[in-house]
């Protein structure tokens, strides 16, 4: 499916540019898009190296598995395929915690690491497992406790009360997280029915 979306996005863009005379912009976009992607990956290196280094210490010292035991009841309900003492649990949890505090930069390496562990649990197959899809659904619903970036923008524009946003964000995030899990479950049961 991602193959089609990718091709369709580019072809629509190119076709549109021909009709609308935006070919010059599109030409430029090809190069700026590629450049931006590389800049982003290079920028990620520093964060990835630092946080994965830190997390390795947390893993080696047993801190990650302690964390998993603490939240075991909730997490094992969400990820029934993952054994509760598996390192994947620790990474999933740390990723969720980082996301909750709006630490997007720290969350990405932990999320990738969690995916890696989940892939291993899935015998290294290159297709998404049930737990991977669940993990992704939770991530896209983005459980946020403190939307730090947004609060900062509101402060910049002299909001009367920048943190007013915390309440609605919490409610919206909670509802959408529950919805994401339900949607995920729905697709899972549909898959398993098909065999």
């Amino acid at each position, binding site marked *: 499916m991602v193959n089609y979306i990718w091709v369709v996005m580019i072809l629509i863009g190119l076709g549109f540019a021909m009709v609308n005379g935006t070919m010059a912009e599109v030409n430029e976009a090809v190069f700026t898009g590629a450049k931006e992607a590389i800049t982003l990956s290079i920028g990620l290196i520093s964060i990835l190296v630092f946080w994965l280094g830190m997390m390795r210490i947390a893993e080696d010292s047993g801190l990650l598995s302690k964390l998993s035991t603490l939240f075991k009841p909730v997490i094992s309900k969400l990820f029934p395929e993952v054994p509760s003492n598996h390192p994947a649990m620790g990474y999933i949890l740390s990723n969720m915690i980082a996301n909750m505090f709006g630490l997007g930069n720290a969350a990405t390496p932990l999320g990738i690491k969690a995916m890696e562990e989940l892939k291993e649990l899935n015998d290294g197959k290159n297709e998404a497992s049930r737990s991977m899809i669940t993990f992704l659904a939770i991530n896209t619903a983005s459980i946020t406790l403190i939307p730090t970036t947004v609060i900062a923008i509101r402060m910049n524009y002299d909001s009367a009360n920048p943190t*007013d946003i915390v309440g609605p964000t919490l409610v919206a995030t909670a509802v959408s997280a529950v919805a994401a899990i339900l949607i995920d479950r729905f697709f899972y049961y549909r898959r398993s029915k098909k065999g």
Partner: protein
Amino acid sequence: MEIVSAISLWFIPVMIAFILIYGTYKKVPTYESFVEGGKEGIKMAVSIMPFLVGMMVAIAVFRASGALDVMVNWLRPGLEMVGIPAEIVPLALIRPISGTAALGITSDLIGVHGPDSFIGTLAATLQGSTDTTFYVLTVYFGAVGIKKMGDALKVGFLADAVAIITAIIVVAFMF
């Protein structure tokens, strides 16, 4: 407010200190562990590159051609009929695709309409309660080499749609 900014300021330093102290207490070779873990980070960043380039070029072409604007204009009347302000439509459509673009639109909306206006609050809530599905999908699956995404894309986008609708309803109720 002070508590919130204190938490976001102190969270990372406290976490670093805690991990280091606990590691030392458990007699982990901390520095060596750090370096070993860090090595993985370089590999990861490099393995993401082709996925990000592919995706970001496609998004850039789609946006630069003007196709995205046309799509937004098409959807506008229908969305306005159900009470969704037109100004928010581009943000809702771009949020799953591009994080930086969404952040740009959010600050623009807050700047133009004011941080405490309905549209400003809605933009802020949307920004805070949803995530860049396409990015998460590309980076997470790309880094570990998942080629068959299964239902992941459908689940992700449906979850996004629900998150956007929820944000609109919640803000309409609370403000």
